[in-house]
């Protein structure tokens, strides 16, 4: 049966392309939660609110969800705020599984991207295509999140 081999060959380059541009970060990487906040602050973003996460997801250790924006005091800026979920996992398999769950749901969100940084899974969930969202993406890239 040659067909599955051909199909697998067709899928291979796509997966490699995908792996090249979106592979997970190493779990052992020395990643600190503070790196993330510092990077966001450096890019001119503020944390407008934060709450603890209480997930019952395999391997979930702790986490927070933030509302991020350029100007927390401005009412006009409320629409431009977006959500950042930072979840720490106690093992790589759990982090990767959560990442997969999130990436398969990305198309259901208007703007969303899923990142990994050491033991952390980071999800940016935005409502609008705003510059703040791009700033956050740049900040994550700067700290080596993938």
């Amino acid at each position, binding site marked *: *049966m040659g*067909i*599955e081999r*051909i*199909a*697998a060959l*067709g*899928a291979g*380059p*796509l*997966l490699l*392309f*995908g*792996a*090249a*541009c*979106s*592979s*997970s970060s190493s779990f052992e990487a020395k990643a600190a939660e503070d790196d993330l906040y510092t990077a966001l602050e450096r890019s001119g973003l503020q944390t407008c609110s934060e*709450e603890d*996460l*209480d*997930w*019952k*997801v*395999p*391997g979930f250790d702790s986490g927070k*969800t933030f509302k991020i924006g350029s100007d927390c005091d401005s009412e006009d800026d409320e629409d431009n705020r977006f*959500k950042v*979920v930072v*979840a720490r996992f106690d*093992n790589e*398999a759990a982090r*990767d*599984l959560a*990442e*997969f*769950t*999130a*990436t*398969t*749901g*990305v*198309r*259901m*969100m*208007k703007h*969303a*991207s*899923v*990142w990994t940084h050491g033991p952390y*899974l980071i*999800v*940016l*969930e935005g409502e*609008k*295509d705003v510059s703040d969202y791009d700033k956050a*993406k740049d900040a994550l*890239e700067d700290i080596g999140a*993938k």
Partner: protein
Amino acid sequence: MSNAAAVAAPATSASTSGGKSKVKYLGIFSIVMVNVAAVLSMRNFPTMAVYGWSSVTWYVLGTLLFMIPISLIGAELATGPWDQDGGVFSWVKAGLGNKSGLIAVWCEWTENIVWFPTVLSFLATTFVYAFNQDLANNKLYMFSTMLLVFWAVTLLNFKGVHASSKLNNFGTVFGTILPAVLLVGALAIFLFQGNASEISFSAGAFKPDFSFGNLPFVATVVLIFAGMEMGGYQANEMENPQRDFPRAMFMSAIFIVAATVVCTVAIAIVVPSKDISLAGGLMQAFDTFFEAISAGWLTPIVALLVVLGSAAQLNAWLLGPARGLSADKNGDLPPVFLRQNENGSPVAVLVMQGILGTLFCTLFLFMPGVNSSYWILSALTTEIFCVMYILIFAAAIRLRKTKPIEQYPRAYTVPGGTAGMYILGGIGLFATAFALIVGFAPSDQLKNGNPVLYVVALVTGTFVLSFFPLLFKFWQKPSWKPSPGPVVPVAAGGGR
């Protein structure tokens, strides 16, 4: 069994009782359950609930642009006086020719194979929610559970459409409908207890954001009810498909839209949006939901029910496109695709998709980086899914010209005569073509990847995968064409 016999034999099973042959048919309920199992996915509810009341407007949009056109047109296509052995394959073949029919069903089949690891990993992780969640971190557990379920459902389908239907009926009633009822019941208790809604009600709350940047999301909404054609693969198993299939389509459509809207709004009312996340998933949302009425003990029970519903969903998608792919009588595919067993089950295609599904599950679990890039394959298969729907709508429109209803009466025709077909078919065609084009836009998930390379890869991949079955033309042999055997009438009243 020879190819000819396999193609001509009715899949409808017959049993002998007291010397009398008794033919088993699928009822309206079974077809409704196939469609509900295929389309109604609870996994999407929490993500859509984030949009609050405006999710209702998005669903209405999906209903107008896709659900109504595909349901009405599917009902007409399934009741026309042309071969009805292969669902989507037969519909597109009747309107646009054999090769287009093959492309259409191939697109659906391929989309399916890439989707298997998604539903199987969801099923495996949800199953342990009730016992020991840490098991989900064990790749051996994940791999063995995913493959065990996958091959068990595949082998069940070797027994034919009626055995498959039993799992669909049971799994959908207890795994999809019952959890939906529990959600609604829990919402009633939540409101009765005097709790405040997490979303405020106002006319403005229904207004969706139609800004240019949200166009890709509109394309997603269009396909939210994809899968309504699944019942068509089993239409010829009904005693009177001309009368009953349209009824089954309408019942499925109404139930699916109603359940989707009610369950999404229920989650939006009870679960704060901060507790809904892409990574948290369905069970996290359910947990918060039931905790809100102090019924957290319900979550593990609902988890097991959802597993059952997912198995039914897997089952619905596993058999339909495989049946369609094995319905080619023109010799455009190698004979192995047509091979059926004595139960009328397309065993060769089922084994092929089993092997491919196993391969993708293995890559997903054990190849570093694959699970984080799997979304690219999903994006690709969403594109080829759109190709299939474009072909269905185009075929329906063209059939009104090439096979006018005066000479080729259909038991059901879409309202409004030929103009009605042009409008409905045009809406469906436009919506799915729009989804196809917008789907090529680089996703946010691409991050620092090269967007040009991404678009080129996606366009090329869509083209190559969609037209892949035509490659068999290069190796085609005259012996591939099934020899005309004794044609046995397919079921009853089929107009065939």
